[in-house]
């Protein structure tokens, strides 16, 4: 059970949060101009890395804010949390 540092509320138990998959996948601004393959790339393709992964989380049972997290999926270590729209503090 993680202890997650919500950028708006501080440290809270994982049970207050829900995970929202890979981060930094931007919805195309002009979907109609994309080929089926390009659209499928946005829609379906996710990396699912073993190691450092950038993820979206939502403080669902708290402030309801979405934010990003850098997590090592091999040991569940959270390296950073940062607000939506901010650049990841770690490469």
């Amino acid at each position, binding site marked *: 059970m*993680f202890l997650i540092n919500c950028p708006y509320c501080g440290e809270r*138990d994982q049970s207050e949060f829900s995970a929202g998959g890979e981060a930094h996948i931007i*919805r195309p601004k002009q979907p109609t101009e994309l080929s089926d393959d390009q659209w499928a790339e946005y829609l379906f393709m996710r990396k699912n890395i073993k190691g450092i992964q950038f993820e*979206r989380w939502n403080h669902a049972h708290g402030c309801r804010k979405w934010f990003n997290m850098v997590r090592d999926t091999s040991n569940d270590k959270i390296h950073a949390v940062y607000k939506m729209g901010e650049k990841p503090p770690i490469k």
Partner: protein
Amino acid sequence: MSKDLRITNSKFIDQTSRISFKFDGKNLYGFKGDTLASALLANNIHLVGRSFKYHRPRGIMACGSEEPNAIVQVGNDTSMTEPNTRATEIELYEGLEASSQNCWPSVNFDLGAVNNFFSPLIPAAFYYKTFMWPANFWKLYEYFIRKSAGLGKSPTEPDKDIYDHRYLHCDVLIVGGGISGIMAAKTAAKNNLNTVLIDDKNILGGTTLFQENECFKINNSYSNEWLKKEIESLNSLKNLTIKTRTSLAAYHSYNYLLARENLTDHLDLDEKKNKIRQRLWKIRAKKVIIATGAMERPLIFNNNDRPGVILSSSIKKYIDFYGVKCGQKISLFTNNDSAYETAISLNKCGVSVNSVVDIRDKTNSLIVKHAEKLGIKVHWKSTVVNTNGYKKINSIEIMKLSDDGTNVIEKKINEECDCLGISGGWTPRVHLFTQSGGKLKFRDEDNVFVPDKSDLDQISIGSCNGDFGLDDVIKNTVNLINKFLKINNNDYENLEIISSKEIDKKNIWLLPSDKPLGKTKPFLDFQNDSTANDIKLALREGFKSIEHVKRYTTTGMATDQGKLSNMHALGIIAETAGVKMGELGTTTFRPPYTPLTFGAIVGRNVGEFFDITRKTPMHDWHVENKAEFENVGQWKRAWYYPKDNENMHEAVQRESKAARDSAGILDASTLGKIDIQGSDASEFLNRVYTNAWSKLEIGKCRYGLMLNEDGMVYDDGVTTRLSENHYLMTTTTGGAANVLSKLEDYLQTEWPELDVYLTSVTDHYGTVSICGPNSKKILSKVIPDLDLSDKEFPHMTFKSVLIDNIKCRVMRISFTGEHSYEINIQSSYAKSVWEKCFKAGKEFNITPYGTETMHLLRAEKGFIIAGQDTDGTMTPIDLQMDWIISKKKYDFIGKRSLYRSDTIREDRKQLVGLLTDDPNEILEEGAQIVAETDKQPVEMLGHVTSSYFSPNLNKSIALAVVKNGKKLMGQKLFVPMKNKTINVTITDTVFLDKENKRLNA
């Protein structure tokens, strides 16, 4: 109680308070401080169960949670009995009743024991191999296997005990109150850290508590005396919380731990009542110190499982702590020094020790010399090759070991005994460390896995970290704690320690025998009854991975998770396969460390607290009017209102007819309601719905369809424009929470530039829906001032009005196809408005209807229910709802997916209507639809999604999804059922009032 088995000088047993208990129906006595196991041993009862596979007699073997044999059923009341408890962990209380498990008809005469004579026929994986085929025989096999195996009986009634959950936050959590744990606790608390110390026993001190031996001294006192003073000094520490009878069950990431505290299990039967039985602590610790100690290993040799064969350190605890002799003539068998501690303790208490059989060459450590000085005989470089006795050991056979340890030589010696203590060395309890994700390393010199790397803020100290000598434990504990807690001076830095040091080490995983391996029974896993032979067989059959061997032989798969057997299983595999043990890896230990009761897991979340129940403001009215309810998510919704002796079908037919003939009233309060405000609210709706919203006038309502980005229908509902920048969105009852979070997701992550705010207002308003040709007349009685003319208040519009001076919103919208109104009013007034409408409708026979009738009425009109007629694979085009997709909008959620190669396929499943040839035949929802009846296998074209008998059309109607359905209009298809085939015809989805005349009737 056999007087001669109980010595009188134990400090830990109160011999003035006698406790009576029952075991297998027999009245017995013990003392306060006993466990069930120690009391049984004091009564000379060793035989407590039968083994799982061979039904061999088994006795108490250990004194703690690692006990594999003494698994008992507690309580004689079949409704409340508890199976699979360890006699070694049950504190004796007045009124305790326990019985053996896994034996039938009784532990002394067990029919299953014939398995033992057939045991050459029951090798590893016997059950897998024999009972595999034919599959339908399994029912038969299972009956007999279960009857003869039996892992206790489940209680037949719900648990009446009370359980509890609580949170605990601390700076330092110390697990284990032995010598190292106590040192850690004192040091941490003295350094101003909020410290919690937990231990599963009822008293702190671990094994040092009864270590009164000249070979182990601290500052000139016996180690136990020194420790006693340390424990007493803990009381004065303000920062320290001590929890005894609390066992750690699970260690998760981020130092989140679960511990179970036993609050009443040790109390007398009549004192337990109305108290919380167990409490589950949910602990979040900044730092964790694991001080869980070590477990003694057994030795693996022929017939090492007879009652009376006990771990040497347990014999020591029974005599030193409980004052119980495990036998009158005890032999010991060891590969290390610790059996000599037992020998000395026994000797001190006047129990004769026949001899110590030691596989090592003569060794001269302090403790061995001390034992020999006391006259204890030692068979050096020898092994026990066999034990005799059926229900209790009566002798052992000893032989000399060859130089390389692989053979036995010279003459066999027979030694009579009534108890054999065995010691195969020590295994650090690293279970919690590995549960938390820690990695182990193998230490070759004494064959142990010790903690290596962990990502968490934790350390292991004491023997669970591989320190077995008293001096090592103290010195390393001090160093580790200083570093871990970043402190400089420690009370324990300059202690004067006397500690016997083990000089010689030798280990043989499977001891040699004078008989060939196939003729011996060297047990590894006592609870699951697997032997070293089973492991070797598995390896011969080609299994290589420890995880596979484990499952194939079931070694380590019992309720003790192989606490005693895992190391030997690994050792024998490594030896046989010729690989190094460290390279083989270990099996994974999973929580809980010891079994947890379901009660502790669920805590207070039982009965009405199991889940949240949401009730509408009108709920009480529905109850008074005899509604049947259905669960929709967490909501209780009125399902139908049976009159007199109506069944559901009759009630729904009556309600449906009344709603179309005159007037019906429905509680629609559960529909999700989201308040949307902001200057970009219209643009936002444009992006989330398929249709256009910018031009919707203030005061008007519009139906909207929401897709997922993959183009599939997600939710639907009517949204009303309350003012320029203010909308009220409704969602399906079940989808409300998900829709809100999806919308929030887009607002916060994709379109942060939009000025839009969302608030869930589902619970704020109650919704009364009145429909039918007389609805207008009824509403005009309720709100006389409101102009209800079609010109002033047309379909799909809303009015803000007052009812009894209370503001409410009236929408003229319809889910039934009838002229209909929805009144939204603040929840606290909703019931009175409902009653007002009901009263006003009396003269029109206004009929309350539930969700079933609502579903029927909308199906007559071909309106979909998202989640019933859709399943996440239907596009609006599949639903024949092309009209709702705006052609002008550049983009909305899911738009691009509507013309992917897959979504434009013409042979997708599409929503159609179905009529049965026999109008009285009602299809089953979920029934499959086919085009041919004489072919097998036949292609499934689709399935029925909604089906009803329509009283208004006087025939059966259904909605279905059918492959290429749009093109099959008028086509005859078949619905094959178990006993018959139903002929159906594909039709339009709208069955009633295609021209929508009734909306304005």
